[in-house]
């Protein structure tokens, strides 16, 4: 009985790694769709998003089965409940990557795009997602903390991009459409960064039993 439980926990772990890898893939495709104006990448990002949704349902069922049948306690319970929360963040990351890809279809390659820091944002959020998944895979608490701190970088980049876009519109109002699209993409990237932070927090919770965002409530 115990053996089966351990096996299923291991399966949960592997499935989470798979789902995390899919998220990285989705962001990678979305970034390429944006920077290289590649319609094929945009399509791929959306296909991966569908796969992520499927995976979320599978993992959800696995978690619920584990909770009901094995009635885990202590650490195991923490791991499973953290997994349940983590997959919803991962699913959101997939959705937002698909949303970014959707917008890129309407953006024509334009030199104004290279004037803003959107590529840096894409790179920074990609790194955050990779690091948050890595912190889960390697059970690496310091890495999880570094992801939480790195969110500031993405937030600063978002403000910078926003300022740059305002400047572009002021320069020539014909840039308006492109700028609005880019602003939305930047916002999506910023949200992806937040979800990566959430994942890192759930990693922290599953490892230590403490959740950073709860600290204010407990105090």
């Amino acid at each position, binding site marked *: 009985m115990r053996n089966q439980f351990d096996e299923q926990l291991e*399966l949960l772990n*592997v499935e989470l790694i*798979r789902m995390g890898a899919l998220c990285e893939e989705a962001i990678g495709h979305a970034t390429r769709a944006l920077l290289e104006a590649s319609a094929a990448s945009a399509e791929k990002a959306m296909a991966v998003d569908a796969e992520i949704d499927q995976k979320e349902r599978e993992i959800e069922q696995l978690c619920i089965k584990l909770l009901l049948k094995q009635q885990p306690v202590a650490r195991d319970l923490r791991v499973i409940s953290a997994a349940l929360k983590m997959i919803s963040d991962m699913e959101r990351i997939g959705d937002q990557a698909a949303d970014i890809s959707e917008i890129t279809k309407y953006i024509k390659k334009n030199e104004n795009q290279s004037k803003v820091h959107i590529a840096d944002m894409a790179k920074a959020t990609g790194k955050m997602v990779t690091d948050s998944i890595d912190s889960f895979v390697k059970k690496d608490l310091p890495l999880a903390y570094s992801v939480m701190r790195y969110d500031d970088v993405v937030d600063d980049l978002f403000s910078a991009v926003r300022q740059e876009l305002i400047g572009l519109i002021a320069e020539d109002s014909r840039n308006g459409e492109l700028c609005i699209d880019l602003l939305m993409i930047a916002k999506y990237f910023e949200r992806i960064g937040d979800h990566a932070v959430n994942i890192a927090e759930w990693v922290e919770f599953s490892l230590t039993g403490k959740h950073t965002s709860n600290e204010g409530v407990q105090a």
Partner: protein
Amino acid sequence: MTVRIFRSIFLVATAVLLACFILIFGMLYEHLGQQIQAELQVEAVYIAQGLAQSGESYFQGLKGTNRITWVAADGTVLYDSDSEAAAMENHADREEIQEALTNGSGQSTRYSTTFDERRIYFATRLSDGTVLRVSSAQRSVWVLIMGMLSPVIFIFVLAAVLSGVLASTLAKRILRPVNAIDLEHPEQSETYEELAPLLSKIYHQNRVIDSQISELQRKQAEFTAITENMSEGFLVIDEHTDLLSYNTSALRLLGAEAAGGKRSVLALNRSEGFRNAVERSLSGEHSEEIFEREGRYFQIMANPVSREGRVAGAVLIILDITEKHAQENMRREFTANVSHELKTPLTSISGTAEIIKNGFVKPEDIPHFAGNIYEEAQRLIALIGDIMRLSQLDEDSLPLEKQPVDLYALASSVLHRLEDAAKKKGISLALSGQRTMVSGVPQVLDEMLFNLCDNAVKYNRENGHVRVCVSTEQEHAVLRVEDDGIGIPAADRDRVFERFYRVDKSHSKEIGGTGLGLSIVKHGAMFHNARVSLESELGKGTAVTIVF
């Protein structure tokens, strides 16, 4: 086993003890019965004598535990010590009395109707024909036992304790040699000879196991030696993607750290290609994928492992194909470049020839156009010549013999040929060093030297300097061509030896050249087993050193 031996011994002891008691009691009972009878007989004799001397009054002074009955010859009870004689029935039918009447004495053991207990009777016929009977209650076995109960229990407990202690000691002593057997070396143990076949069997099995273990260890060591010395990554996983075995190369290629315990191979790498290969192999298909990690390219080959008709895991081999990948890219670029380089002069030739053919050119302009065609054709010939030389160097199929060549003289002749070109830009050429002989193909060495010096002049500033130095260092001939020209940007330094690679991407005609010069130098050096090194600083100049 000790417990069992103890229990057996103890049970046997107890059973024997019990049986002894029962037998002893039985015999005692019998013996006591006979003794009572003898006593009764003696008593009857005494009483009979007393009765003969003193008559009936003798009974008055008699005191005893036994019952005395005096019966007349017809069976009428004359006296009874325990009951009123007159009230008693006729005793003629009593077994012992009848026997006494006929034989002179008689005895019996039976239930007395008078006392309602088992009694022993002895009767004797007196001289007057009457019968005297003495009887005693036979004490039953239970009474006997009850009487002896406390000593019997005491003895029993004592015997039980004694037998327990003895059984335990004995059991231990019997087993001591068995426990002392060293199962690793059963042949050295001294123990019961009944165990000898077992021990010899154990001994032989030990030897079989030892040889099997060492065989397995040897195989394991062999396997480890093979996999550890592989530069390829090697991983074995089960059907749940958990790692079963891996070599250090695999960890190095995947950038993972060694860790104990069960973990999924996907924790080592989760890039798309890697995941696809793992998943496809676990679904029973062979698969090959390429994935990228930290700027390097890896090929993964995954093969399913089947057991009893289903996939039980997979074997993964990982190769670093970064160089191959780069070479493939280079080849693609080379093909693109070569076509481009060949097409440009041809287009120019074809265009000029077309204009002449259509008669748009005045006769006096024809030499100019023909000159263009000639120049472009020369360019084409030079290019094709370079490509042919390169491919000859590539394939090591130079039809020329190596012979001793004086590098200094060669350098001098090359510089002489470049004097005109250098003079146009006001560049000064200098040669230093001494006669240095190397073994090589003069044509190739000349070409290499010419290309180097030509580059030094071409990519120089007005009034620059080119210095060629031929020397010997540590028994190696060293050729060094230095200029203080425009230099090569750091990003391009590694690539200038590639075919058709140009720092100036515009492929400008004014500088000329085919883009193959340094490539020929590199391959020529390789042909002569020489080493080429390049130092350069942007804006300050370039130095190329060839060490033979």
